[in-house]
């Protein structure tokens, strides 16, 4: 088939243009967040302190935020494929191979990502103004100057945009593997959920191991070994959350669906039960951030209390500064995680509205109130989010119980602040759902426009 004809068919119009705006905005936001994380991580990295915790803070911050940034790319790919389904299916019908259609879709997603990354990179030049008031190692970051090249070496600043475009392309390739591009239409490949109690057993063993590490950790191990052991424990817990999360939310959804008399709750719960892995994948980053926030916030609160008391002499000045900076890192981790998940939710919700447009129109015709249709998808997105956050918080409280209880007694404001941060984060994700409401309204109004 003539390449020009393919480009003609693939050219975005109407609905696709709206989706492209979302894609570009998501890529721009991802870029901005990536630059902010890199700038903060590099600020930790270049601290010349005898305290070895700073490189760990830098690597930890960069590492913990890599996964959510990649999953955001996957969500963008899915949205792009679903929003163009008619034209992609037409290309298949006209004889273009699935591989070529896939390549075309990946090219388009990469192009949109590149535009967003470029916009984000330009906006990143303003980040020194926003991050300037933060302090690292007791010095305000604004002392570094207000030019981006003073914050990041040229090779890091230069590597971020192409790396993000590459992640978008790879995520598109990976994401499109789950989408069937057939001449009769485009649909997401459904995999029957295979969840078993074996997961719970594996999870229990991993939790036991993590508990042992936390219980036996002692100052005698030295800071590096202690932090490394805690990192292993956190990674084990992340693995456990990944194993148990889908199982737990499917179980909860099943119970809810069998009892509720509310139509929106029923549809939302059955939707989660139908594909718990996807539901969990979209919120797993929040579970990890919450899980880190509770014990780390408690520890920092406890240390903050010590640093204000006469016992502060047991800590070196460098350690005091490190603990203050760890707090900054923690807030950045949670804030960026929620921002990424909110962006991802907006993209996923848009893709879902487009995927289920015929069904939504049918429900609207049947007389299901539009607020109920909207509420159904909101619950489907927010219920796993709340479950992940509350579940991870409870798990963290159980595992780090002594630390959390001491912090609750000596530094309750830290725990209140942690709860407030989580509450604000949930509101941010809710906003991610709310911004896609116009897409649903546009779909429901399509028959009135004669479409």
């Amino acid at each position, binding site marked *: 088939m003539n390449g020009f004809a393919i480009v003609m068919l693939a050219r975005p119009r109407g609905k696709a243009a709206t989706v492209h705006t979302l894609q570009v905005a998501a890529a721009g936001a991802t870029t901005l967040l990536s630059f902010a994380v890199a700038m903060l991580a590099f600020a930790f990295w270049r601290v010349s302190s005898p305290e070895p915790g700073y490189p760990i803070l830098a690597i930890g911050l960069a590492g913990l935020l890599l996964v959510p940034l990649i999953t955001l790319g996957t969500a963008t790919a899915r949205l792009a494929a679903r929003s163009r389904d008619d034209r992609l299916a037409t290309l298949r019908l006209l004889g273009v191979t699935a591989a070529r259609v896939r390549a075309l879709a990946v090219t388009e997603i990469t192009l949109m990502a590149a535009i967003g990354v470029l916009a984000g990179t330009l906006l990143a030049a303003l980040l020194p103004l926003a991050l300037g008031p933060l302090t690292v190692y007791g010095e305000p970051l604004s002392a570094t100057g207000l030019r981006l090249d003073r914050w990041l070496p040229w090779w890091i600043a230069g590597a971020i945009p192409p790396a993000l475009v590459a992640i978008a392309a790879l995520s598109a390739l990976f994401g499109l593997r789950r989408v069937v591009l057939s001449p009769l239409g485009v649909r997401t490949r459904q995999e029957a959920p295979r969840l078993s109690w074996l997961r719970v057993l594996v999870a229990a063993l991993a939790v036991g191991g993590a508990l042992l590490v936390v219980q036996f950790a002692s100052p005698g191990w030295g800071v590096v070994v202690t932090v490394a052991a805690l990192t292993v424990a956190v990674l084990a817990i992340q693995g456990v959350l990944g194993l148990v999360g889908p199982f737990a939310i499917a179980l909860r959804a099943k119970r809810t669906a069998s009892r509720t008399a509310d139509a929106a709750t029923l549809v939302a719960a059955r939707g989660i039960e139908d594909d718990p892995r996807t539901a969990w994948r979209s919120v797993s980053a929040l579970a990890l951030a919450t899980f880190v926030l509770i014990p780390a916030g408690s520890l920092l609160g406890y240390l903050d209390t010590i640093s204000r008391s006469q016992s502060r002499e047991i800590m070196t000045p460098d350690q005091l500064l490190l603990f203050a900076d760890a707090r900054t890192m923690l807030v950045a981790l949670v804030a960026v995680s929620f921002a990424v998940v909110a962006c991802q939710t907006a993209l996923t919700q848009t893709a879902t509205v487009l995927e289920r447009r015929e069904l939504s129109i049918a*429900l609207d015709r049947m*007389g299901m109130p539009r607020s109920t249709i909207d509420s159904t998808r909101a619950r489907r997105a927010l219920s796993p989010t709340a479950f992940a956050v509350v579940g991870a918080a409870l798990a963290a409280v159980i595992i780090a119980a002594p630390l959390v209880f001491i912090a609750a007694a000596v530094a309750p404001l830290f725990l209140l602040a942690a709860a407030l941060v989580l509450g604000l984060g949930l509101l941010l994700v809710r906003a991610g759902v709310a911004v896609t409401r116009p897409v649903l309204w546009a779909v429901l109004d399509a028959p009135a426009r004669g479409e």
Partner: protein
Amino acid sequence: MQHTPRSPHPTHSADPYPWLLRAESLTKTFGQTLALSDASVTVRPGEAVAIMGASGSGKSTLLHALAGVLPPDRGTVLLRRPDGDGFDDLAALTDAERSGLRLRRFGFVFQQGLLIPELTAGENVALPLLLAGISRHEANARAATELHRLGLAGLDPRRIGQLSGGQAQRVAIARALAVRPSVIFADEPTGALDSGTASEVLDALVAASTGPERALVVVTHDEQVAARCGRVVRLRDGRVEEAQ
């Protein structure tokens, strides 16, 4: 939501409004396209009406206007109240009021069924009842009754993907009937089925959708489907050409 009867051509017979649904002089345009032009249709209790016409003749627009999905630019759509005491003018209602009316007074059967795939057959049928505020227990019981009536006894717990095309379409009919509607609107209800299954589904649809205070309106291309209806309304370029 209720409107005082004005002049829907009342008669002095025992039944002042011998119709369930009456559309008069409907006009609807989409941009430069005239989809309906001065179209009038009357649907009486107990009858099955087929709306036929070529693609783009305005069949779906007429169905949507009759069902209160689309407000016409001009004209009225009157729906007789269940007690026969007056009527509601759909064109004068707000969007929310029309939604409420569709939920309680109308049933819909679509070509592809458009059932919610993650719900069971029973839950799909119970859904409009839950929306109408009926308890889960009663909604489940009524859904089971409707499924039984349509020859699907025992299939309540099955997901839609576990049903055949004909069974899924019967579930869609059961869902449309669950709220005991006055009018059932069917848009190419057998278009996605093989001829044998289509005939069975059509039998079930006509039998279940017509009665003393109930009527069926079917949009179809298929002459065989139209032949099963008591009356055929033919459309051409948005105009009612023939109402047999």
